[in-house]
């Protein structure tokens, strides 16, 4: 496998160095918000049961941000550095009355479980560690602030400035003759889960928009996500219509969809992609929801994409975790993998996104995408389709904009889906929707290794900080909540951290591809399990040799050659200029071509 990223060892090395609150790498106490003495517990003689190496004895330090385990017996010293945000559950194993070792286990959100133990005599100590863990791993349940609010690291760039809705719409050419930007949701009155800035068809006044909102679940009206620079075909997103059992209709909604279709002169059709399986969509009618009937919506074609709901996805990832962690059963690897259906879900999502992108690019037809509430599957589909259609989103900054726009501003409920700092680990609202999306992006990068400016480490870093609660980026459920909590003011953005060390996240194979549309093969022969994420804790996962290193060398050589060519050319030009000044025009002419060709 030619992997774009470097080895897992060097990755952990890198992340150890790069992890912002430094000072833990040595045992010395540093001064940062994290390490104020009353928030810190340290214990000697703790056993960590590593499923790969075996039992290790060492010291544990728990702060309000992380759990830090260090074992000096080994060479090099074994270090485990775990942000408490990834802990989903802490459980006591073994009763206090028995005289043997007592232990407790941590179930983590990032596909691993950890087990620690103390001697019985240290029970009081264990209790204190256990209590500290319970307290700091679940600050929300204990009425404490999430660590992101205390982490005061300053980066050269303000990550919150990465995305600005108006300038992103402007980049797409909005407003134009058929689309306008509306401030009707400025105070989140029309829809409290939508952003304040929305792009809607020109000929729909704000008043009508409010009536459409009444017909869409949670008031999530169809709004523009992306517009094709040439054909003006658009990707719009919304939630399900409130059709109900009686087949209710809304004149305004029908007119609205007609307006979306009319905004694109190239096509007299509109595709409505309902991400759900048709059975689920029909079942939603009982709850007042449903789907657009083709009678009511002239010229619209409804397509179901058969993607399952958050509960199915959660179950699938849980099974996957069982299969890959801690040990992999040799003989039934493939059928075990199959039984999780994880790759099948990935395939359906990618196939759906591909159909959307294909309709927009090849069919020049506008599409409307929705699921039930329009914040899970819809976000996956629109953002993946946009990634295929628009090279800008395949740059590092562009990808940040894409996440800020399609996921954060349009109200993917990160707080509920991830459960930041919440001890209620069985919450049915939790689901790996976002992980699935990042997995799909990774699959794309595998098929188009030169089309993405970012590397695998970038994707893994985003997922790591989805849980770490170090940055404010993924906190809260909507833009409105984030503003209310003053997240942008009181926390640091993940993008500040990433953009301050871009070279870590850059794909050396990247060539500017902005005008290309990517149509991946969603054949199962091309989809594979993202071993670099799901199985990264397994040390037997042999680190890939850094192939990109070789490419970097070549790039460096090219730069050097280019420099020498330039120098020589300058020299030659100077010489000829001095010798034949009457021909001053020609040398400059000959410089440029060589540069482009090297």
């Amino acid at each position, binding site marked *: 496998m*030619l992997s774009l990223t470097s080895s897992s060892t060097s990755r952990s090395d890198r992340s150890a160095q790069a992890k912002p609150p430094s000072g833990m790498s040595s045992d010395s106490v540093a001064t940062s918000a994290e390490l104020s003495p009353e928030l810190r517990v340290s214990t000697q003689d703790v056993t960590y049961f590593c499923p790969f190496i075996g039992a290790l004895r060492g010291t544990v330090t728990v702060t309000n941000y992380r759990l830090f385990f260090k074992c000096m017996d080994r060479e090099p010293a074994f270090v485990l550095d775990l942000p408490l945000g990834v802990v989903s559950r802490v459980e006591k194993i073994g009763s206090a009355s028995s005289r043997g070792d007592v232990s407790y286990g941590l179930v983590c959100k990032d596909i691993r479980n950890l087990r620690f133990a103390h001697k019985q005599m240290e029970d009081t100590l264990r209790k204190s560690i256990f209590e500290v863990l319970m307290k700091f791993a679940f600050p929300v349940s204990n009425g404490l602030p999430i660590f992101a609010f205390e982490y005061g690291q300053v980066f050269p760039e303000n990550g919150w400035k990465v995305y600005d809705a108006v300038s992103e719409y402007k980049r797409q050419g909005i407003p134009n003759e058929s689309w306008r930007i509306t401030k009707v949701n400025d105070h989140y009155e029309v829809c409290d889960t939508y952003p304040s800035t929305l792009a809607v068809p020109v000929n729909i006044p704000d008043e009508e928009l409010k009536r459409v909102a009444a017909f869409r679940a949670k008031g999530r009206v169809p709004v523009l996500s992306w517009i094709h620079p040439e054909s003006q075909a658009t990707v719009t997103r919304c939630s399900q219509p409130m059709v109900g059992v009686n087949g209710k209709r809304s004149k305004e909604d029908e007119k609205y969809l007609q307006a979306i279709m009319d905004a694109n002169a190239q096509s007299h059709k509109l595709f409505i992609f309902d991400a759900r399986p048709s059975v689920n969509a029909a079942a939603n009618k009982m709850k007042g929801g449903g789907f657009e009937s083709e009678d009511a919506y002239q010229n619209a074609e409804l397509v179901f994409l058969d993607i399952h709901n958050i509960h199915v996805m959660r179950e699938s990832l849980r099974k996957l975790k069982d299969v890959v962690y801690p040990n992999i059963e*040799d003989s039934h690897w493939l059928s075990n993998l199959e039984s999780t259906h994880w790759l099948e879900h990935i395939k359906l999502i990618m196939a759906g996104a591909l159909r959307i992108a*294909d309709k927009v690019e090849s069919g020049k037809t506008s599409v409307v995408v929705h699921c039930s509430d329009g914040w899970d599957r819809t976000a996956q589909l629109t953002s993946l389709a946009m990634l295929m259609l628009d090279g800008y989103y395949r740059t590092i900054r562009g990808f940040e904009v894409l996440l800020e726009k399609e996921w954060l501003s349009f109200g993917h409920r990160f707080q509920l889906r991830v459960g930041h700092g919440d001890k209620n680990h069985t919450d049915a609202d939790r689901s790996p929707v976002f992980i699935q999306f990042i997995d799909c992006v990774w699959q794309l990068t595998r098929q188009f290794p030169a089309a993405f400016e970012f590397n695998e480490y970038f994707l893994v870093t985003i997922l790591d900080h989805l849980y770490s609660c170090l940055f404010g980026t993924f906190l809260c459920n909507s833009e409105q909540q984030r503003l209310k909590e003053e997240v942008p003011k009181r926390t640091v953005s993940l993008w500040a951290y990433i953009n301050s060390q871009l070279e870590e996240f850059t794909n050396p194979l990247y060539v500017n*591809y902005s005008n290309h549309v990517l149509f991946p*093969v969603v054949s*199962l022969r091309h989809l594979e399990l993202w071993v670099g994420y799901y199985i990264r804790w397994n040390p037997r996962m*042999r680190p890939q040799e850094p192939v990109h290193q070789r490419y970097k060398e070549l790039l460096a050589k090219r730069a050097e050659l*280019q420099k020498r060519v330039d120098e020589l050319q300058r020299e*030659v030009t100077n010489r000829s200029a001095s010798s034949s000044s009457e021909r001053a025009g020609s040398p400059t002419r000959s410089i440029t071509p060589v540069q482009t060709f*090297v």
Partner: protein
Amino acid sequence: MFLLVVCVCVCVCLQVEQVRLLDRFSNKSTNGTLYLTATHLIFVERSLQSDSILHHHIASVEKLSLTTTGCPLVIQCRNFRVVHFVVQRERDCHDIYSSLLLSYEEVYAFSYNPKQNDQQREEGWQIIDLGAEFERMGVPCDQWQLTNVNIDYKVCETYPRDLYVPITASKPIIVGSSKFRSKGRFPVLTYFYQEKKAAVCRCSQPLSGFSARCLEDESMLQAISKANHNSRFVYVMDTRPKLNALANRAAGKGYENEDNYSNIRFQFVGIENIHVMRTSLQKLLEVIGTRSLSMSDFLVGLESSGWLRHIKAVVDAAIFLAKAVTVEGASVLVHCSDGWDRTAQVCSLGALLMDPYYRTIKGFMVLIEKDWISFGHKFADRCDQLDGDPKEVSPIFTQFLECVWQLTEQFPQAFEFSEWFLLQIHEHVHSCQYGNFLGNNQRQREDLRLRERTHSLWAFLMSEKQNYLNPFYSPAYSEAHPVLEPSTLPYHFKFWRNMYHQFDRSMHPRQSILKTVLTMRENNRKAESTLQALEKVKVQRQEEDDDDDEQEEVGEEATESTDTERTVEGSSGTESRKQSYGELEGTYNSESAKEEPAVVSLEFGVARMTC
């Protein structure tokens, strides 16, 4: 391409117009004309693009029942290509069918002429010299000698003439031992690990039955053990599953009894036999040939075919061998039943793990020549070169190539050659275009006078060496990691898409890193030559020569404005583009698109052959 068409005119036997070629996995099809020559089946599209299949590659031809559009004909090839033609008239279809079924009395190699004279041909055959190879390993030495017992193929006719044995093994011991071994294949040296003076030997199963003994054979093993002072014992690896070995005892064969042989450690490693492997591959091909395959069917089918499990078994055995030799410093004797299938796999793969030389292009050729060709892997039977017994056909060598490929995936820097080298070798093992793989053993090859009548594949591959280089290869890495220790976790054994879907373009990767890197290297090379040209200009200028012409020449390779048109990459359900895979690939870098090195066209043109 044009050349092909001209060539066809000379020797075409059958020509059928209006033939449709269906794509295996989509609903696309192309129209064209089908030509049948003495050696090839050639399909020429309307656009004059042509594609040819060598008769030797055809494994089976099947006529399906007549449809409204014509008479379908499905051709399965040994290089995993499946071609689906629809011929308009049934009579034409039948003509093609029956002429394809005609057995040809002579292999292609005897008529193939790459326009070389006899001297070049002879030089080609001399590229690989096994005597020199054993010298490289440090043999003969104070413990191992060259024996001439088999100089007339008297002792063992499936072995080569030159064999290396311990010095203490006298001729009577050798002859006695050979009589106690199946097909007379007594223990001989195949690889010598100089650092620890440990030897890898190979042989066939002993004819021990339930209780038979042979003192000469026992002293032969004793001699092997004595030749290595580092270890008090020698490993005997029986590569078969224990059950199979037990069953063989009833036929008067079997395995070594640890009580009779002093200082041996006996070990079964459990690689299945040729029949299991053949069935397994068939199952695999069935699964991947299914048109609309669901993810579940694919994963479950892949697992139940057992193919990757068998690959893992071979790699596991090779790792065991390499560990025993390099870590314990013990000598190892490897055998299976006849010692020409599983034994060849394990010995060659083990040597590949231990010795970086075999991971170079030349070294890999030497390895195949030594462990496969000279020690008598039955290529003619296993690859079904001339209508042999279907029960003898088995993808043993393909498996070996796949094991190597799995290793290249784990160690991208350790191999001098790329995947295309393996694919090309696989292609020619079945093509019968070169003499190397014809026949079952050296003796047959000498009888056929192949060295005089055919050409060597190694010479051809060497002349195209540039095409097979792995850009990631790092000799420094090889020096630092002489012995490879691969991981055998199940997810490290992957489906080899480029082998089994080599000819299904819709299955090819959209962008290949290999190609990007190759292009990059090519660009750097060009930059270097520009640099040289400039330096020359500079010198000229210094000599006060006039004038600007020279300089313009250098810069002539011209600006290409970056195109701002939207380009579509990859395929979609509705397939709106006409470009072929090759053209598409070229678009990935507007700078280098036009300067794509000829090298990389190989990626999708492996099958294109010169007529």
